[in-house]
């Protein structure tokens, strides 16, 4: 909020992005790929966090926004032969439009009703992708390889098959969403969102039209989720219904809560942690989900407000 706090915060966030930028030169090829995927999914979680962490609305339907971005990009690339940039913008647009339209309906509800309504509309979206399987390929999905042109920056051609391209596109998308969310927390609008989270009635009686602010939050959240979905499609040249299923609504919720909802860095931490816990344990034992479950329980017993949330509460109160 105030000047002398702003500087270290900004420095920290820039440092995180720079760290990710640097990591690509030191990590193994496998980690390289993992990090690229983690960044894209972390962007998804960042988008989710805008709604849950900074506005206090818990959605169980964000898969529909992720998938909206994924399908908008994927289908236009596949059928229309759109370029990656156009495809990406269309994906972003789809996330924005869908979340705006949804917002006008679902924001009439709050609390658990909001949770359920978003879940049900996401289910409708998921089933729709199956119903139109002759176009979408249903859960088998579509492959973009051969339809997807390389990314053009001036003279150079950047094929998405190139790991470096994957990584840095992922980084660009994540960095954008990450800093966007940081800016949001510092902006007056962002503070109003927090006010809505903390006490909506009071906020109304201070003269704010809380509905429009919640809609704003949902649209930003949906837009970011759409971007993430779009980026995922471009990077892994695949579109499929699985990414619209309830699981992909639960993941961002889980990642955000584990990392710390209402913290800008939490979503990244949560996503990375969960991805690696699964990856490492699954290599060690067939029953790895038990370990994952135990880890979740232990984390939450130690940090009920998520890892970064706990760190903020204990040591770094100035974390946004």
């Amino acid at each position: 909020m105030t000047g002398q706090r702003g500087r270290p915060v900004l420095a920290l966030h820039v440092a995180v992005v720079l760290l990710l930028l640097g990591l690509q030169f030191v990590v193994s090829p496998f980690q390289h790929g993992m990090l690229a995927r983690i960044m894209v999914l972390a962007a998804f979680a960042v988008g989710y966090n805008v709604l849950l962490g900074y506005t206090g609305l818990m959605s169980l339907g964000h898969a529909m926004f992720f998938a909206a971005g994924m399908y908008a990009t994927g289908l236009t690339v596949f059928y229309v032969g759109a370029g990656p940039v156009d495809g990406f913008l269309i994906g972003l647009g789809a996330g924005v439009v869908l979340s705006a339209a949804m917002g006008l309906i679902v924001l009439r509800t709050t609390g658990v009703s909001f949770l359920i309504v978003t879940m049900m509309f996401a289910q409708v979206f998921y089933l729709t992708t199956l119903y139109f399987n002759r176009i979408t390929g249903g859960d088998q999905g579509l492959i973009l390889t051969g339809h997807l042109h390389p990314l053009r920056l001036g003279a150079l051609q950047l094929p998405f098959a190139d790991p470096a391209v994957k990584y840095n596109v992922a980084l660009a998308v994540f960095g954008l969403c990450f800093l966007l969310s940081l800016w949001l927390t510092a902006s007056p609008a962002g503070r109003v969102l927090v006010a809505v989270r903390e006490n909506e009635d009071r906020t109304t009686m201070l003269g704010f039209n809380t509905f429009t602010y919640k809609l704003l939050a949902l649209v930003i959240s949906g837009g970011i989720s759409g971007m993430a979905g779009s980026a995922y499609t471009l990077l892994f040249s695949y579109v499929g219904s699985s990414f619209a299923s309830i699981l992909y609504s639960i993941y961002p919720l889980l990642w955000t809560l584990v990392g710390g909802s209402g913290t800008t860095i939490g979503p990244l931490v949560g996503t990375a942690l969960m991805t690696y816990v699964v990856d490492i344990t699954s290599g060690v034992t067939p029953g790895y989900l038990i370990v994952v479950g135990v880890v979740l329980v232990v984390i939450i017993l130690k940090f009920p407000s998520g890892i970064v949330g706990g760190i903020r509460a204990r040591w770094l109160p100035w974390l946004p």
Partner: protein
Amino acid sequence: MAAVAAVAPLLATHALRRTFGGLVAVRSVDFRLDRGEIRSIIGPNGAGKTTLLGIICGRIPPTSGRVVFNGRDITALRAYERVALGIVYTFQIISIYKRLTVYENVALAAERRLMRTPLDHLVAVRLPVAEQVEGALDEVGLRGTASRIAGSLPYGHQRLLEVAMALAAGPEVLALDEPTQGLAPDEIASLCALIRRMSATITILLVEHNMQVVLELSRRITVMDRGAIIAEGSPREIEANPDVRRVYLGL
């Protein structure tokens, strides 16, 4: 003065009615509030005071009737729109952002007025906010608490903080719903002083049970019973009014 007011009431309701299911909370109330006065609304529990206040502030839609503010029919306006017009409300049960700092609490109130263009939403508007926050905090006597977490303030200070937020929201009419509830005598005294100070620039509408406070502060008093206004007048007139004594003071 009264004549002037008669010409242009700051706020007036016409044949206001509100029912909840079968229960009539407010029945055909014609209420008028003049600019610059301190008005108290009193009455036994369930008389409809808070409902009337709620309708005036736009928290509760009337079943029928109109609300006019500055000569403009605002019946259709939502609560937040009325706040923007200058009708500001403080809750009966203290309502602040307990987990935010005192500064942030008041800043939110101030910022709403300063955020006019979309751009204002994007980039932090700094200077005016800080000044207005300090001003409001000084006014209510909370200077120096800016960086504290609101929830950690003593009860009385939380009440004052809510008033400071109301001030920062730039009220023309300030509706206080039982502000002295749960305050210690000395706190009540200072709150009364504050209200009197504020009334120099702001019209005060008070729903209050504490008769000392009411009689001491009010220019005029409106008495409600079973959803209707049964009397209105100066403290002295009201004290003398037999109906009031019967119905309300229970004498």
